[in-house]
């Protein structure tokens, strides 16, 4: 597969598509009925016609790579195809309402929220689900606050959250944000949780263990029952990071494995668009025992309708309102379209694709059996390998993580690639592996920009066009 990304270049030959500010700006004096001392003097912003703007942004879009451009096996991110009909459903005028209108006039919104709470509960094996957290990390934060409130309600002050060394960075940051000391758990030789080390790590101080299953190496934590018993026996709770749920749909549920709390990344598992970094949504499911601690409001069914209420011991708010509503609408639409058979098949094909791709590439893959993703080891610097893969028209895997694999290429093709596409991906992997170091270090060449200097970007940060202007003077 050959790829040339569009590359618009300014006449100066010093920059690609110029900034809006370099095209045309205008300074407008602020003139208002308000007293002068309550207003600003002027505003200077880009001032372009709609055709100019349409062209500006279209060119920018051409210098951007998405799931519809080509394969996007970015490990841990589950870059699925985002079904088009969900755009239309989310864009439905009836979805565009204010949350403070009377409940009797927003029954459609409440009903849809109720259905989504319900189906997510069934998918995860959880008794109650809140939709409020606006992203996965916000879900983690919500879940850990629920755990904290639960322990406190029992007069049980606990100070630690245990996190495996291979966990997502958000787990550590979340636990710290919630005020816990983080106990990092080293992995076992086989890439899974070291049960003996866990036994040594948990204590009456343990508020929770945060676990991803399958873990970031794609491995199922086979000892999950023993792990759950250890944590529960110490009085702690088990938290499931839903980043890898796409591996398990219809085959295993966190609730059945002994997890008390979980978050769902609907932008991963349920195919809502990643939007260049967001918005996502991170609903949180809990067991009956913890349902009373969920955020306010929660939706329940009443006689002939739906209503919002504050759970009895609610932790309160984790978002100004009810989270990323338009993302939740899309997630429900996806689940309602696929149903049991589709969800189960999505996981089957995601796992099939990861295994097939792994079998077709000439890289060492130290850990297995893996599920929806695998972590390959590159002979060269994984970051360089990734840059060269860009030239072949594929988005590279996540690089240099998890650290258990040297020069890691964490690869998650998802279910949306067919065999031909996977074969092309494999060709790109192997082509790069066989290239000389110079070629790899020179890459990428076919992309809009060539290799970008990260060091000077951080050393002398220029974060706005104003900073660029100041720099030039």
């Amino acid at each position, binding site marked *: 597969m050959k790829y040339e990304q569009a590359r618009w270049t300014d006449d100066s030959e010093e920059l690609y598509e110029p900034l809006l500010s370099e095209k045309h700006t205008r300074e407008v004096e602020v003139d208002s009925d308000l007293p002068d001392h309550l207003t600003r003097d002027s505003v200077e912003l880009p001032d372009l016609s709609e055709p100019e703007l349409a062209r500006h942004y279209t060119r920018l879009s051409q210098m951007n790579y998405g799931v519809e451009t080509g394969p996007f096996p970015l490990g841990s991110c589950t870059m699925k195809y985002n079904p088009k*009909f969900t755009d239309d459903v989310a864009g439905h005028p009836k979805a565009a309402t204010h949350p403070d209108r009377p409940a009797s006039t927003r029954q459609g919104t409440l009903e849809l929220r109720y259905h989504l709470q319900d189906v997510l509960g069934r998918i995860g094996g959880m008794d109650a689900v809140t939709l409020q957290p606006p992203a996965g990390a916000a879900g983690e934060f919500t879940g850990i606050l629920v755990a904290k409130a639960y322990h406190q309600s029992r007069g049980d002050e606990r100070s630690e959250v245990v996190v495996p060394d291979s966990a997502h960075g958000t787990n550590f940051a979340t636990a710290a944000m919630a005020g816990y000391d983080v106990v990092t758990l080293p992995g076992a030789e086989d890439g899974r949780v070291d049960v003996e080390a866990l036994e040594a790590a948990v204590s009456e101080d343990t508020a929770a263990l945060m676990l991803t299953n399958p873990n970031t190496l794609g491995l199922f934590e086979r000892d999950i029952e023993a792990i759950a018993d250890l944590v529960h026996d110490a009085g702690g709770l088990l938290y499931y990071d839903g980043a890898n749920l796409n591996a398990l749909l219809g085959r295993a549920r966190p609730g059945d494995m002994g997890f008390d709390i979980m978050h769902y990344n609907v932008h991963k598992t349920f195919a809502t668009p990643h939007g260049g970094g967001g918005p996502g949504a991170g609903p949180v499911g809990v067991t009956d025992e913890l349902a009373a601690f969920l955020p306010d409001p929660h939706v329940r069914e009443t006689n002939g309708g739906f209503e919002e209420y504050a759970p009895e011991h609610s932790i309160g708010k984790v978002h100004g309102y009810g989270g990323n509503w338009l993302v939740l609408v899309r997630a429900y639409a996806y689940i309602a379209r696929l149903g049991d058979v589709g969800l189960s098949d999505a996981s089957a094909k995601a796992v099939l694709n990861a295994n097939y791709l792994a079998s077709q590439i000439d890289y060492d893959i130290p850990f297995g059996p893996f599920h929806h993703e695998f972590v390959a080891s590159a002979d060269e610097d994984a970051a360089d390998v990734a840059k060269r893969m860009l030239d072949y028209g594929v988005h590279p895997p996540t690089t240099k993580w998890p650290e258990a694999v040297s020069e890691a290429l964490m690869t998650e093709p998802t279910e949306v690639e067919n065999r031909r596409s996977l074969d092309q991906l494999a060709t790109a992997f192997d082509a790069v592996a066989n290239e000389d170091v110079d070629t790899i270090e020179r890459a990428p060449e076919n992309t809009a920009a060539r290799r970008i200097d990260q060091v000077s970007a951080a050393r002398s940060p220029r974060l706005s066009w104003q900073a660029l202007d100041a720099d030039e003077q």
Partner: protein
Amino acid sequence: MSSEHTPDGSPFAPHTPSETAAMLDVLGVDSEEDLFDIPEAVRFDGSFDIPARSERDTRRHLETVLSRNEDVVEFLGRGHYDHYVPSLVDAISHRSEFLTSYTQYQPEVAQGFLQALFEYQSMLVELTGLDVANCSMYDAATALGEAATLATRVRSVSGAVVLVPELLHEGRRGTLENYVDGSDLRVESYPMDDGNVDVDALRERMDEDVAMVYAENPTLAGTIEERLADLGDLTDDHDALFCLGTDIVALALLQEPASVGADVVVGEAASLGVGYADGMGMGLFACDESFLRQVPGRLVGASEDSAGMRAYTLTLQTREQHIRRERATSNICTNQAWVALRTAIHAASLGPEGLVDLADDCVTAAAALAERVDDISGMRAPVYDRHHFREFVAHTDQPAAAVASDLADEGFAVHVVGEHRIQLCTTERNDTQRDALVEALEDVA
């Protein structure tokens, strides 16, 4: 498989049966189930009882549910606003190169989104007068929470109290309380004077223990603050952070935050680019350059590529969770980047004149509607003798809940904010309904 058919697998997994069989053959297994390494004891062999549907049936199902939202004319605000979003915003933001991309870990293939975010950051720098803006938080409430935790990391600031206005949206106050739950900070409120900050009471409250003072302009009640510079001085005198909450439209008209001494600006940016979305928002976050290495969230910076051309990249990532783990400035990963793109396109589409005019309309329309409501027998408006932006509180002689309920019967939604107080918010989205609202109020008030 066509969108007309009920799927018997994932319609978005493109494998033909023979292709699946061939791939299984390559792997030497009989079925996909053989690839799952899940102990028997925790296998799920039940059903979710979720039927599969064709695309057409799925749309019908969702549209049927959503259609139970009644047609109501909303005069609602309190932090969540509706402005007309130009078609350009939808058309451009739905280009799949933008919509289906992700965080720009490979900047060489993501220059387009990075540049759009860089432009968004720059517009925020212009509007706030501060040096640094990040490329989004989830919403105004979480941005406020992040500002408070920033206060704990800034060396020039000590103290354990975050002072917030008595009149603060419950979602923002609640979120803030949770964000500081893991720190030594606690949240206390200061009183208001006729809708605005009671600066004298605040001055008396200030001491060594105050880490941050938060104020909003406009306030929750829609009033425009008149003594913000005093707050800037007050917080300076006590080595506290001054965090100003606002929204992106108001920024185009009201006092520039930097000019009144704001150290951090947070607020709602989705009032451009989104409109009503059941509370879905986009948090703006800008601050003084001295806090650069303590900023939460993603930052786009300009650099050069190996061809010597200007290029953009996420930068200062050592602040972030994927590198710094428990010592990160925040746990945020997925943010609201696509909403930031929409906000930027909307702002660019308005241009400076359009944006200032829109903001000015928010002042004149609120004043004009308040005047008309004030003329209604049984009502008084605005309750606060201040200038207003988009919205205002009105007094009702009758119980406010009854007035709102009667209005709902007439097809209007308003906020009830006190026993005898309602709040009305107006923009160009409900301008043709103002006459009808006034008539309805004349009947029910």
